[in-house]
């Protein structure tokens, strides 16, 4: 008796409590909702509600699983195409963000120490205005009679406006613009910790600055590159607002399909199935990242 009372007390003693809080948070706000979505995706239209989650009709709890939504996704070429297209845009966004963000982060990390906080501030400055507003502002820049086209025409560079809005171009610009800070911040954090002595050692061994960059700086910032790429790639796949506002009807992205299933067709099982497949798509790069990080960790532990 005393024994069990002790374990009970132990459970609520400080350490366990603190470790427990994130678990409670995760289970109640991530794992359980996810399971609910999974269950809904395996239901029919009629049974797709939280109260119908478990079937009591036989007198005991049972789950009726219905795979028709998944079958439909797999059989309809449009879904497959949309998923591929989402991955394509997410990849393009990630690559462009990396190409712009890396030099950006590099020079930020090399800037005089006292101006670095200011530069960091400037990176985060866009977050001070609403995301929607900023995306909408791009519209006024990119439309046919928008600022860019008007300026180019009045300068005589061309006579006809270029159709930039509602194209893959406008979509990509919006995505890159929105997600660039998420690439720069982890890269900056990583590069500012890069020990300058490695660069000196490379120079000492006869490596030109450019070669040193590829042979030393880039490999040593791999963790930052991976973190930044994940932070851009994962939310990019499911992005809804940017394709909706800037992408037009010919850019296919899964976020918009999701929206349509939920709010236009009211087909919750289908929408949930689309979401679950998207999560699976995201899990692949996540798993790779995890493996890389645990490899790193076990390398360190072996030291």
């Amino acid at each position, binding site marked *: 008796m005393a024994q069990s009372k002790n374990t009970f007390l132990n459970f609520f003693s400080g350490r366990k409590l603190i470790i427990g809080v994130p678990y409670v948070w995760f289970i109640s706000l991530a794992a359980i909702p996810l399971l609910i979505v999974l269950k809904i995706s395996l239901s029919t239209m009629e049974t797709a509600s939280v109260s119908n989650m478990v079937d009591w009709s036989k007198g005991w709890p049972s789950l009726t699983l219905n795979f028709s939504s998944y079958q439909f996704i797999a059989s309809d070429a449009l879904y497959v195409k949309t998923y591929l297209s989402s991955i394509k845009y997410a990849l393009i966004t990630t690559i462009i963000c990396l190409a712009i963000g890396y030099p950006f982060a590099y020079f930020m990390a090399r800037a005089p120490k006292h101006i670095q906080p200011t530069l960091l501030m400037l990176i985060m400055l866009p977050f001070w205005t609403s995301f929607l507003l900023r995306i909408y502002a791009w519209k006024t820049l990119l439309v046919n009679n928008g600022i860019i086209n008007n300026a180019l025409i009045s300068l005589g560079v061309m006579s006809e406006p270029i159709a930039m809005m509602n194209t893959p171009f406008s979509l990509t610009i919006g995505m890159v613009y929105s997600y660039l800070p998420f690439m720069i911040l982890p890269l900056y954090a990583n590069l500012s910790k890069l*020990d300058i*002595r*490695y660069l*000196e*050692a*490379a*120079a*000492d*061994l*006869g*490596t*030109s*600055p450019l*070669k040193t960059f590829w*042979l*030393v700086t880039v*490999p*040593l910032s*791999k963790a930052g590159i991976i973190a930044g790429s994940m932070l851009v790639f994962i939310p990019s796949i499911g992005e809804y607002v940017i394709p909706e506002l800037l992408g037009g009807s010919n850019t296919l992205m899964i976020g918009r399909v999701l929206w349509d299933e939920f709010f236009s067709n009211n087909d919750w099982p289908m929408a949930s199935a689309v979401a679950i497949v998207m999560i699976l798509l995201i899990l692949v790069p996540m798993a790779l990242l995890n493996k890389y990080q645990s490899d790193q960790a076990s*390398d*360190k532990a*072996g*030291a």
Partner: protein
Amino acid sequence: MATASKPQTGMKSAEKEELLRIEGISKIYDGTVKAVDDVSLTVYKGEIFGLLGGSGCGKSTLLRMLAGFEAPTKGKIYLAEQDITNLPAYQRPINMMFQSYALFPHLSVWENIAFGLKRDGMPKDQIAERVEKMLGLVQLTKFAPRKPHQLSGGQQQRVALARSLAKRPQLLLLDEPLGALDKKLRETTQLELVNIIEQVGVTCVLVTHDQEEAMTMASRIAVMSEGYFLQVGDPDTVYEMPNSRKVADFIGNVNMFEGVIEEDEPDHVTVRSLECIHYVGHGISGHAGMQVGVALRPEKVMLSKRKPKGDYNWAEGEVIEIVYFGAHTTYHLKLASGMVLKAQEINSTRDLSCGLTWGDKAYAHWSNEAMVVLTQ
């Protein structure tokens, strides 16, 4: 080739060939911090030159200018008669072994050593051959596939050495090469390091703040303070004949008396200090009435219970401390003036000091040639 421009203090042979010449080099940081102040130096082929000095005296800065990581504010650097002052680091035939090793963490031991060779466009088979040879030299052959963090401190140190030697540099720079090792490992590694360096036959400039390390490893040393050289010479000379109070104080243990020259003759001088009258058996560059320091090494002080004969070079005191070191024992003698005089006795001859113990009265005495008179 040898230009006899400098006084070649302590050179075993004047025939030595000059490799590195530094002329009036200075480094001023941020317009105010004088890290290195008008230093000139010649290093000869095949020697291990030690740069010795306290923390912040500018040793690393001087070395980094040689490597090409810092541009001198003033002055010139010549390597084998060629002006390399403005040559970027990656074009200098000089390699450096870093204080913290700076081994590339993402590359294996093998790749670390091969790194510099690959940049030279050396054929693959030659690279492999050279790397194997370097690994053999530092006895790390079986560690080749490991990453640096999987090695012990001493092993990392040897990889760093192998990496800096792999390109066969004309000049090897070592910044506190043993700084990260514990004391016992340091002592064995010192000799090992000297062995390897001599095997390869590379000229070295070695930075250290440990005077024992400089003494055991270097064939010539410079004692540095506040950015300039106090004294340059071979370790014996610097130890036996320091040219200033600072050097005497920095190198080894010393008893320092402050006094005034009374007699100044060509063949001897006498100095009166609070503790005693010193009779120095050789002439010095000074004059009567001059304020000087008299430096006396503890191992040159003898102890006895009987009062020494004569009026010079002895003092009476009370034993207040006996420190046993194994091979020798150091006695601390408190003199009437309040000064604590250290005397070091070899333990096999300890019976000569008549079994002195705490609280005993004792006389310390020393020979006419035991002291160095310091005018600055």
